[in-house]
């Protein structure tokens, strides 16, 4: 142990420390160039047919379970076209890669799956092709109003809707009945009443779980008629003080502050166990849920049923969308006609939609939603109930004129930091949490150069 040896070594360690600490994030940079126009394109749907006949190669990013089979079916129908399917990660993982590729000016796919809430973000940065340039606005009547509205921004069409998630109430009939709730709640007042009965019957059981989820909260505000996210060009306004939002918070606070909700976080192992053993007795969520229940709460087969989402007045059926994606053409695409043709086939051709339905997806196309073959399918898991009938009816009662922020993906990421930390760690008033969320969103929007009202 000579000191001559030891000191340089420790010095090396110190330098290495600095290296590791600094190097860990040195590599993430962002370019400044935004996707430039590849010359103005203008055409009609016949250009798309021509592009399909001519053939070529395109890249498609998606994480949907049906993508692989759909691409195979497409290549079979159009042998001259080669589609390279890439799973670039689920939602935010893929968006990060997509944004980086768009900023870098190359490397983006021709077609990408984009969830409805993220469409405004890419529309704002002018990264997506307006599909109206190929006359796809003619397809409007094929889709539900709410999904079509989600891909239309300022008269431009930034993608074609694939699936949709009109919200409904999935509930464990057995637990409800045991607690003396024999009829599915149709109003929120009845729902709160049921929550009390279920929790009183067995303190381990809760009517539902809410650990603080920005997407869920937004959809619930949407259903209540709120308009918290307002966008006018580069001006943003976040407002959780409007009547609709207050309607939701007043109602939900009665469950939340009274400790009538489980705080098990969604999509975790414990959550699925709760859905299986009945300790989470209902879910207010999108119509894409049945497949997830069948796969991950198989033990509760026969217990669950579907009913329309409860309403505030008990007369007019109204719901909101929760989740769902569109497929968009990225402006960087070298072959926009072929990419658009692929999107048209993917989300409009019956052959593709058949594959999509087979994988358990919930469609956005009115033809399928109105097709008795779809709506009258009896689901074994749900005790032979025709669940699609309830869900398809929900699809036509989505409240109109909803908006997401062009920074919505980030907004959902920081919901836990703000509203979650404030309200959901201690059964606190949800309004206080939403106020924190608004403050953080305003700060972020200002940093990003928006005018905040």
């Amino acid at each position, binding site marked *: *142990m*000579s*000191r001559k040896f030891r*000191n340089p*070594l*420790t*010095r090396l*360690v*110190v*330098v*290495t*420390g*600095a*290296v*590791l*600490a*600094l*190097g*860990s*994030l*040195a*590599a*993430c*940079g*962002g370019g*400044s160039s*935004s996707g430039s126009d590849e010359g103005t394109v203008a055409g009609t749907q016949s250009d798309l047919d021509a592009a399909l006949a001519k053939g070529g190669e395109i890249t498609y990013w998606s994480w949907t379970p049906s993508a692989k089979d759909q691409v195979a079916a497409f290549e079979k129908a159009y042998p001259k076209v080669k589609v390279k399917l890439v799973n670039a990660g689920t939602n*935010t993982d893929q968006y*990060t890669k997509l*944004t980086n590729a768009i900023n870098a000016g190359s490397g983006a796919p021709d077609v990408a799956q984009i969830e409805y809430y993220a469409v405004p973000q890419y529309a*704002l*940065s002018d990264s997506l092709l307006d599909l109206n340039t190929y006359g796809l606005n003619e397809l409007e009547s094929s889709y539900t109003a709410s999904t079509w509205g989600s891909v239309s921004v300022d008269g431009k069409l930034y993608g074609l809707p694939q699936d949709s998630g009109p919200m409904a109430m999935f509930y464990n009939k057995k637990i409800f009945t045991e607690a003396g709730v024999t009829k599915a709640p149709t109003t929120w007042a009845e729902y709160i009443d049921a929550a009390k009965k279920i929790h009183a019957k067995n303190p381990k059981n809760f009517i539902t779980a809410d*650990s*603080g989820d920005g997407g869920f909260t937004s959809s619930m505000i949407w259903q209540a008629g709120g308009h918290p996210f307002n966008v006018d060009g*580069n001006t943003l306004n976040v407002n959780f003080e409007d009547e609709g939002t207050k309607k939701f918070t007043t109602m939900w606070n009665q469950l939340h502050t009274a400790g009538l909700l489980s705080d*098990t*976080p969604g*999509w*975790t*192992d*414990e959550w699925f*166990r*709760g859905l299986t053993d009945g300790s989470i007795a209902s879910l207010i969520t999108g119509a894409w849920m049945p497949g997830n229940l069948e796969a991950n709460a198989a033990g509760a087969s026969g217990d669950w049923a579907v009913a329309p989402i409860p309403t505030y007045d008990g007369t007019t059926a109204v719901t909101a969308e929760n989740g769902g994606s569109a497929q968009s053409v990225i402006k960087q695409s070298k072959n926009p006609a072929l990419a658009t043709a692929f999107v048209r086939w993917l989300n409009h051709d019956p052959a593709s939609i058949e594959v999509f339905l087979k994988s358990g997806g919930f469609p956005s196309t009115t033809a399928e939603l109105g097709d008795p073959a779809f709506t009258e399918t009896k689901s074994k898991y749900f005790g032979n109930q025709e669940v699609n009938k309830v869900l398809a009816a929900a699809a036509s009662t989505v409240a109109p004129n909803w908006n997401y922020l*062009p*920074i919505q*993906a*980030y907004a959902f*990421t*920081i*919901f*836990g*930091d703000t509203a*979650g*930390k404030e309200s959901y*760690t201690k059964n606190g008033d949800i309004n206080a949490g939403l106020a924190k969320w608004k403050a953080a969103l305003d700060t*972020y929007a200002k*940093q*990003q*150069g*928006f005018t905040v009202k």
Partner: protein
Amino acid sequence: MTMASGTVRSVPPSRPPVRRKSRKDWRGWIFVGPFMAVFALVFIAPLAYAVYLSTFRNQLIGGNSFVGLDNYTQLLHDASFWHSLIRVLLFLVIQVPIMLIIALGAAMAIDSARLYGANLFRIALFLPYAVPAVVAVLMWGFIYGDQFGLVGQLNDAIGTGLDPFSSSWILVSIGNIVTWSFVGYNMLIFYTTLKTIPAELYEAAELDGAGQFWIIRAIKLPALRGSLVIATIFSIIGSFQLFNEPNILRPLKENIITTDYTPNMYAYNLAFSGQQQNYAATVAIVMGVVTAVIAYVVQLRGSRTEDL
């Protein structure tokens, strides 16, 4: 342990000093060159790029612009950053000593030659370090579950209300995972150092009538001082870079393990969720400087104690 110095002087210089001097510089670079090239490419260049990035701001509206030191002044007033820094400092001050003391005790126990099955003990302690961090954290996540995990079963069995994920316990829970993972690693550093102590020293101590306590105080601990300093510095770096454990546990408790829970998580989320790469680079640079300064202070302190 002084070196014999008589042999050095016996070789006389054989060439004129002028020529030799010019060739010496050139030859040195051949040896250092490959290292310097790689070092410049993978260290200096990204670092310089990060510094460069930190002087810009890229906005969704308005694009990229040079802002000088604005990002740094913003960071000075950023409560999220300071809270996360204080959190890892707290973690450092409590978790690192506990971990190192356990490691030290284990190393001495194994080295004492009184332990039955010392090899098995050594491997068992080291094994957690071989478990990938992601797997380890997921495993602990299951154990910590207060409804269906081991803790939940414990609560049911003995009627306790433990919740390792509650806001007051979460840092302790993370500290436990880190300690579990790294005790074996540090133990190995200490153990190898103990193995290098010449047996004569122990013999001499025994002849002088020193007991185990004195052997530890007078021989083992002084010998371990160097590796203690190194292990401490490694642990400081590890604490400041705390990321894996909280980030993997985050989906289980997003309201408590926030996106700005540790400085590294904050930088990561700024860059990859918030598209604020420039500000993230600023956070990374400031954290690098803080880490280097604290590690350097520890190193100075470590060598000073030896002089006394």
